[in-house]
Structure formats: structure tokens, C-alpha cells
């Protein structure tokens, strides 16, 4: 004890940032889903949420490893490994959209967010399976199958809750209104996206908008919910400016590696 593990700084090169945004989306959502372990309303969903988390961690690991190598190739010098990138960055160097760092809420909130994110990911992975970066294309071709499975499972539950009791519907409605403003960030594009689109690394996030809205519209209507209107609020997690919640999450997630540098089992 006592040795403080110093933080690492990832490369600021656009391709690295692009990959880290997606890696962190998977990593941070997985961390949130892991919080359900032993706490889900029924055993089957406890298993479902943690299995979903496991797939997301696998996807994050592959992407973080790749981001570390890309960073070295972009002139950062050393190859940062998946563990360093997952556990030793400062808060502002995490580039996940704010949506996935919001506290897990109740089961309706978690389920609806999972459906939103899995739907976004199926579109993202589908695009990325044609990436000019062969490693990214390989990760995506595998992950798209996993995301579809997650998507269907979460979507079934969204309908079940929306079409369930008065309380389940009310909770789902509350979740929808709480989550909705944070979805806008999933379809914003900036210079990192422009770079990725120009090099063929991956799509602008704005290119995912149409497909996501089409599927969400059908899902929400099947669940008896109206799609909320778009407001002016924009979250900014993917440029490193997070909500107050990420710091607490990282404290929990990073504790072991900070307290016991390089600890493994």
C-alpha cells in the first residue's frame, strides 16, 4: 500500500479519440450494468444484465487495446495497454457519451437505456464492420451479433414494462423523459468524426441518427409511449466534459489499480 499509481494520458490524435469514445461507451455502461449483480428484480435479469456487461467489457477490451496501439503509431511513443487505459486515465480523458454514465436508476431506466444503447451500437458496429481499419472491422463484425442479442432482449422488456402495470408504465415513462435529452449527443458530429469519415475508419455519429430513430419510434409505439420532442440540451461526455456522476463511478472502478498498482489475479 501507499504507492500512488500515476495517471496516464492517451493520445489526442483523432483516430485514437474516435476509438476511445466507443471503447469508453462500452466500458462505462458495463460498469453500470455490473452494479446490478445481485440486485436485479429477478434472477434471470440479474444474469442477463451481467452477461450483457461481460460482452461489453470484451468489446471495450479489444477497442482499448487497439486504441493503445494506434496511439503509439500516432506518435505517443509507448503502447498503453487495455488496463492502463481502462483504469489509469483522469476523468476528462474518458470520452463516453454522458448517457451511459448516468446512475443505473431502477430496472425501467436500465432497461430502456440498454435498448437505446444496443440499438445505437447495432448501427455503429454494422457501419464499422466495413471500416478501413481491419482490426476495427474485425471487432465490429463480432460485436454486432452480440449487440443484436442485447437489443432484442432489452426491447422485449421495454414493451413488457410499457404494456404492463400502471406502475411499470409510469416508471418507463419517467425513464424515457430522464434519458431522452442525453440521446442527442449520440448523433452529434465534430472534427473527430470528420476525420474518421474521411479516412474510412468509421461513420460520423450523425450518420446513425436516421436508423436509430426509425427503430426507436417503432419500439416506443409498441410500448405505448410517445417519442419526446428534441430539446436544446446537449451533453458533452465524449469531449471529456462529464456529468457529476462519472467521478464517483471512476473512484469505484479505479480503486484497485490505484491502491495496488499492477495488481492482477
Amino acid at each position, binding site marked *: 500500500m501507499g504507492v500512488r499509481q500515476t495517471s496516464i494520458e492517451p493520445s489526442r490524435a483523432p483516430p485514437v479519440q474516435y476509438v476511445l469514445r466507443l471503447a469508453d461507451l462500452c466500458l462505462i455502461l458495463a460498469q453500470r450494468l455490473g452494479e446490478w449483480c445481485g440486485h436485479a428484480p429477478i434472477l434471470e435479469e440479474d*444474469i*442477463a444484465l451481467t*452477461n450483457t456487461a461481460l460482452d461489453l*467489457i470484451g468489446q471495450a*477490451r*479489444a477497442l482499448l487495446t487497439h486504441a493503445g496501439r494506434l496511439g503509439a503509431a500516432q506518435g505517443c511513443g509507448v503502447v498503453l495497454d487495455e488496463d492502463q487505459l481502462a483504469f489509469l486515465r483522469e476523468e476528462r480523458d474518458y470520452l463516453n457519451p454522458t448517457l451511459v454514465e448516468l446512475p443505473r436508476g431502477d430496472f425501467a431506466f436500465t432497461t430502456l437505456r440498454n435498448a437505446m444503447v444496443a440499438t445505437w451500437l447495432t448501427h455503429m458496429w454494422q457501419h464499422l464492420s466495413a471500416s478501413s481499419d481491419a482490426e476495427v472491422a*474485425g471487432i465490429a463484425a463480432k460485436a454486432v451479433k452480440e449487440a443484436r*442479442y442485447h437489443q432484442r432482449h432489452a426491447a422485449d422488456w421495454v414493451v413488457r414494462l410499457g404494456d404492463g402495470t400502471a406502475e411499470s408504465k409510469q416508471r418507463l415513462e419517467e425513464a424515457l423523459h430522464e434519458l431522452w435529452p442525453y440521446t442527442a449527443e449520440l448523433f452529434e458530429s465534430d472534427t473527430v468524426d470528420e476525420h474518421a469519415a474521411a479516412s474510412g475508419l468509421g461513420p460520423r455519429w450523425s450518420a446513425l441518427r436516421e436508423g436509430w430513430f426509425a*427503430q426507436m419510434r417503432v419500439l416506443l409505439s409498441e410500448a405505448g409511449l410517445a417519442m419526446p420532442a428534441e430539446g436544446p440540451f446537449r451533453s458533452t461526455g465524449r469531449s471529456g466534459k462529464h456529468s457529476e456522476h462519472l467521478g464517483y463511478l471512476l473512484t469505484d472502478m479505479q480503486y484497485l489499480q490505484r491502491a495496488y498498482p499492477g495488481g492482477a489475479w
Partner: protein
Amino acid sequence: MSVSVTDAPTRVARAWIALQQVLDPEVPALSVLELGIVREVIDRGAMLEIVVTPTYSGCPATEVIARQIMDAIDAAGVGPAQLRLQRAPAWSSDWITAAGRRKLNEYGIAPPAPVPAEATVSVGSIRRRGAPIEVACPRCGSSDTSQLSAFGSTACKALYRCLACLEPFEYFKPI
């Protein structure tokens, strides 16, 4: 100059034989070959290269399997070898061999249905597509079964129950 002995099995052939003995640690009824994750064994001269495709991105067994493969190659005396993880094309449960499917069923795990072709992301309902797949109970063979849980004890399995013999069983997810 090396002399080749034509009737002795090659190093690559001996490696494949050794790999038949490596079992999936989470589904020990199946060898890694029956699971369809070993794509190639290449003789690189000084090294044998073993190309493996992982089943699930987050499958914790992947590292154990990699270690067991290297141990089996060493034990067969055909090393040194190196293992290369190849993600594309992505592993599909369709790659499980016929013998593998039979062994899964005998072990009590219903083998996966063929994976439906999904060229593009659909824009319609993301919920149920087509008729629900028919899963036969590995114990009594009845198709009168229902899903208990979409996820199970490992990343690759779901939980079902048989409505005829009333036993629960695991189903290998088609992916």
C-alpha cells in the same frame, strides 16, 4: 539439408491431432476443433502458428483455451508455437461441427439452430422476427419447450425448460 520422411505425419498434421484433445473448459463435451474456433495451423519454419477465432468478445474462457492449446502443442512435441487471435471473419455457432452438435446434445445442452441471415440492420420492429425457433429438449427430444432466460451460466448459453419432461436445460445460443 533436411530429409523429409514421406510416411510420417507432418508437424501440422500432428498439431491438429493434438488439438482434438483440447476441450472447451466451459463446455467440456466439445473439443476446440468441434467448437470451430481453430481456423488454421501454419508451419512457419521455426514456429507453428495457430490461428484461433474467439467465440464471444468477453468470453473469459478464451485465455484458458489459448493456454491449453499451447500446452497441448508442447506436449505433442511439435512446438514451439505461437497463437494468433483472429477476429474476422467472426465466429458463428454455425461453425460447430456435426459431431460437436451431437456431443452437445448428449451432454445435455441443446445445439444451436442455424443462424438466420441478417445482411442489414432492420428498420422495423427490433423485437421478434419470424416464428420462434424450435428447440428440442436434449433429454426427451420433445419440441414442447420454452425459454426461461435469454442468458445463462456462460456467455454462449440460454436457459430453457422442457414442458414434456419438465426438466430445465441449457441451449447454445445461435450467434
